[in-house]
C-alpha cells in the first residue's frame, strides 16, 4: 500500500499528464476535445494505448498508467464522468496487482 503509483513520473505518465493538464487549463482545449477527441489527441505524440484510455474515459487504466491523481480527478469532473462511475472504476482496482507499486 502506497500513496502513489510512481515516486517519479515516467515519461509515459508525463505525456498523459500533459494532455490532461492542457485539456483543462488552455483556452478552447476542452471545447476542441469535446468536438473531436481524436483530432485533439492527435496534437500530442501520445502512445495509442494512452490516447485510447483517455478517449474511452477508462478511469482505471488512466490510474494504472501513473497519471497524476489530481489531474485524473479534475479530468473526471471536468469531462463529467458520473461520480459513481469513476469511483467504481477506481475501487475495482483495490485488489489489482498493479495498484500502488510506488
Amino acid at each position: 500500500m502506497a500513496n502513489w503509483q510512481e515516486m517519479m513520473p515516467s515519461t509515459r505518465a508525463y505525456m498523459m499528464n500533459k494532455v490532461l493538464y492542457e485539456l483543462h487549463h488552455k483556452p478552447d482545449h476542452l471545447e476542441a476535445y469535446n468536438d473531436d477527441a481524436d483530432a485533439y489527441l492527435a496534437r500530442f505524440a501520445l502512445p495509442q494505448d494512452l490516447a485510447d484510455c483517455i478517449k474511452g474515459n477508462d478511469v482505471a487504466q488512466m490510474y494504472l498508467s501513473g497519471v497524476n491523481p489530481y489531474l485524473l480527478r479534475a479530468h473526471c469532473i471536468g469531462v463529467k464522468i458520473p461520480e459513481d462511475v469513476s469511483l467504481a472504476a477506481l475501487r475495482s482496482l483495490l485488489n489489482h496487482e498493479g495498484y500502488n507499486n510506488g
Partner: protein
Amino acid sequence: MAEITGIYTASHTPVMLNFPDRIPAALREEIFAAYRAMGDDFMAGKPDALIVLSNDHLHNFFLDNFPAFCFGCAESYESPIEHWLHAKRRTFAGDQAFGAYLLQNALQSDFDPAFSMEMVLDHGSLTPLELAGIDPDLPIVPILINCVQPPMPTMRRSYDLGRYLGKAIADYAGVERVAILATGGISHDIATPRMGMVNEEFDQTFLSLMEGDDIDATIRYATDFVHTAGNGCEEIRMWMAAMGAANGAKYHRTYYRAVNDWYTGIGIGRFEV
C-alpha cells in the same frame, strides 16, 4: 515587529462545494459551522495580514516546472482556477511587500523557494477561506508546498520552513498582526482505489500527537505513516509548517469527523499562540 494572532489548521476539499449533497444536511451544517467558528476566532484576533499555507493541485504548476515551495508576491490573486469548481469568483488582496520580505529572507536562510507574481488560487486556498467567511480584502501571502506530485519536500523540511516563517514574521515591521492558516489533509485519497476510505485511526493518532508535546514524534509519525492515509494526507506538510511556526505552542483540535462520502478526514484546530 509583527505579532502572530493565531495559527489555524483546516482540511479542504472541492467536494464540499461540488457535491455538498453527498452527505446528510445535518452533518454538512455541523461541518460548515466548524469552519465559521474558526473564521470567527480568526477575525477576533484582528489580523492585518494572513499567511495561507496551502498547495496547488496542478493548476498553476505543471511538471515542466514544479516547485517544492512557492512564495506568492502578487498584489492580488484571482480565484478559483478550476473551471469545474462550484464557487463564485473572488479576488483576494495580496500583501506583496510581505511576500517579497519572506521570499528574500528565505533565500538568505538556506531555503530555495520559487516565487510567483501571478497565480489564480485553487480550491485549496479558496475553500477554507470561503467557508470561514474571511474577508477577501484581508491581504494574504500564499505559501505553497508541493504535496501533490512526488518527489516532495520532507515532513521535516516543511516543519523547518514553518520555523523559518515564525521567526521571519516576528522580525517583520511592515504589519502589526499576522494570522496563519495552514490548509490540507487529513486522511484522504484523491482518484485512487482507496478514495472514500478515510483512515480515521491515522487521523486520531495524528491529532493526538499534534496536541501533545513531542514535535519529533509528530514529524516521525507523519513521515512514517502518511502512506497509510492517502495521497491527500500528504497535505499535512502544511500542518508541519504550522507546527514549526507555532514553535512549541500548544495545539488543540476544535473539530474532527471522518467523512467518507466527502472522501476526507475533516480536521480543524488551532495553536495557542
